[in-house]
């Protein structure tokens, strides 16, 4: 009675199909069709369904439906989940401690220490009073409208995650630059990480870790934001002037000397550009990660959507923009300083 009956009858699989006939409750679609009373009889070529899993299931009950495929994936994941957690949990536990510790430290230090300390950091990396003034103004504005705590939460998460991205990403980038094989293997993974919609990261992570743990959003942010620093470290080292590398060889440098005295210093502008990108992407992700209990300005945005508190959402969004501008300007200014000391 269904379109693809002939496939199974011609293959002599009717017996196998009828074995699969079950008394399972009807699907909504089947029920609707039944009540409408329009049978599949009046078929024209125009309505020919694609021979998909569901269409074939109509003809042969033993044939799996597509939902069974995704369900199989779920069940498979759930069955390995416990053993995976046994391995991953202790491995990633330090991330939770790190995040919680930084959050605790930032929030429990009085504002009159934190703000000057941040300004001092800005001055050390940029040597620009103008930028220090801008950052001071922004922070004071945020504090004045009582967004200080949220902004500091967001900032601490970004600091921790960006730091870990650099800590993990630079060595991976170096390994990629030294071996073409490694580069071939890593690039597809990086491409995937970069194109997966950010929400999709969260799905397996929610299964693996409990939503109350801070490492859940930590991992999501790191996975999302680590890509540029890896790519640009690799690129930066590969772009180091061949003549200079040859000179290093000709003077008998060991490969370690070459790496630390020539390649990394000369790749530094590119690596710093990667760090800038990584920080900006952490900021983007930390907002999304508020869906899985990441604290900070993202929570306010979420609150704005959920409770239709337009003002809260908009002002929190503005706060995120201000943080983004601060982070971008500060990293760009330090990048410019490195560039200035290295121009050829």
């Amino acid at each position: 009675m269904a379109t693809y009956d002939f496939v199974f009858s011609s293959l002599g699989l009717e017996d196998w199909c009828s074995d699969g006939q079950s008394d399972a409750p009807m699907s909504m679609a089947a029920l609707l069709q039944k009540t409408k009373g329009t049978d599949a009889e009046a078929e024209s070529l125009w309505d020919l369904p694609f021979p998909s899993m569901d269409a074939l299931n109509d003809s042969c009950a033993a044939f799996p439906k597509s939902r069974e495929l995704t369900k199989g994936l779920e069940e498979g994941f759930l069955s390995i989940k416990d053993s995976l957690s046994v391995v991953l949990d202790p491995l990633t536990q330090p991330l939770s401690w790190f995040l919680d510790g930084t959050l605790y430290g930032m929030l429990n230090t009085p504002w009159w220490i934190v703000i000057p300390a941040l300004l001092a950091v800005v001055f050390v990396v940029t040597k620009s009073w103008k930028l220090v003034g801008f950052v001071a103004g922004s922070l004071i504005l945020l504090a004045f409208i009582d967004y200080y705590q949220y902004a500091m939460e967001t900032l601490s998460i970004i600091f921790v995650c960006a730091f870990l991205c650099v800590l993990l990403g630079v060595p991976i980038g170096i390994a990629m630059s030294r071996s073409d094989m490694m580069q071939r293997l890593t690039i597809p993974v990086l491409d995937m990480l970069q194109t997966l919609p950010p929400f999709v990261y969260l799905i397996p992570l929610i299964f693996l870790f409990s939503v109350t743990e801070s490492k859940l959003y930590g991992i999501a942010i790191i996975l999302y934001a680590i890509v540029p620093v890896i790519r640009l470290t690799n690129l930066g080292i590969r772009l180091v002037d061949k003549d200079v590398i040859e000179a290093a060889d000709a003077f008998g440098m060991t490969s370690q000397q070459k790496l630390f005295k020539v390649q990394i210093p000369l790749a530094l502008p590119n690596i710093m550009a990667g760090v800038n990108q990584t920080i900006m992407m952490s900021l983007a992700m930390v907002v999304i990660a508020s869906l899985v209990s990441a604290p900070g300005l993202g929570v306010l945005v979420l609150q704005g959507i959920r409770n239709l508190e337009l003002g809260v959402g908009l002002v929190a969004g503005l706060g995120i923009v201000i943080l983004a501008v601060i982070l971008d300007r500060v990293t760009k200014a330090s990048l410019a300083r490195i560039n200035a000391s290295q121009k050829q």
Partner: protein
Amino acid sequence: MDRDIKISIRNLYKIFGPIPDVALAYVRRGMGKAELLEKHNHVLGLQDINVDMREGEITVIMGLSGSGKSTLIRHLNRLIEPTAGEIEVDGKNVLNFDEDGLRKLRREQMSMVFQKFALLPHKTVLENAGMALLVRGHTVRDFEDEAKKWLARVGLEGNENQYPHQLSGGMQQRVGIARALASNSPVMLMDEAFSALDPLIRSDMQDLLLELQEELKKTVVFITHDLDEALKLADHLVILKDGHIVQQGEPQEILMQPNDPYITDFISDINRARVLRVRSVMEKTTEPPADCAGDISDRDNLESVIARSEGDTDLVYRVVKKGNQVGILEMKELVKALVPVDASEGDNRSRY
């Protein structure tokens, strides 16, 4: 001319491509560069190179681009591995060195000066000059005096704390030379060291090199595509074409007796009066000439003799070396020597 042989290259071949060994067999059986490229897709880099480089001499390897000269110099410190052949430095085959031995050779025996300077852009001039010492594990304070001494020697006193990008090209190459000298290695490899500089500065740098060489007596291997530069610097000149040696020997000898149309063509455009020296054109005799117009040194170039004679071709000069007569020079002979060998051919080509 009886100095010890410092570097000796024997039957060196280099073939670029996926299976050089197979291609090598074809080349040994006499296949040429073009045929090898067309039939087997391998590039013949160097073909049967035999050169002896003597201690304390400047050996100049000259050729046009693509002749394999840069490839050849990179074999000496094994920045490029040969396909076949031997390279001996002080009698030891460099190709047998393991990684440590090779590193030691590069650190202590050979220093290199590059066409594009290849200085470290993030280090000061001082640190760049001391690079060889830094590599050996010394700290900046250790080598500061040594590096300053050599920087002063190449005329860069007071620039120690600048960065390479703050210097002009000529000054950067001086840093490159100071860097090579500070390594205190007996062999200096110079890969088109002056080619990127403008003509006036190039001439200055050549004078600087000759002056330093007078004092330090290093074994210098110099690569160039410029014949004037080659003739000015060379004690021993090697002319490369398409990966093989066309002629090698004393530069004056090559000028007087070119053995290949390629070289004739090459030398037809140079100012022979400036390059040729009295000793190459004089008649060797200890008998004093009949009416001597004066004494000239065997190292004088012909230009200075012409200037001295004021164009009078009837004069005869006595040639003196260290106070003793070694020959006589008739001005007529001198004028003849100014015409390139195989002049007709040379003329035709220079007039296209």
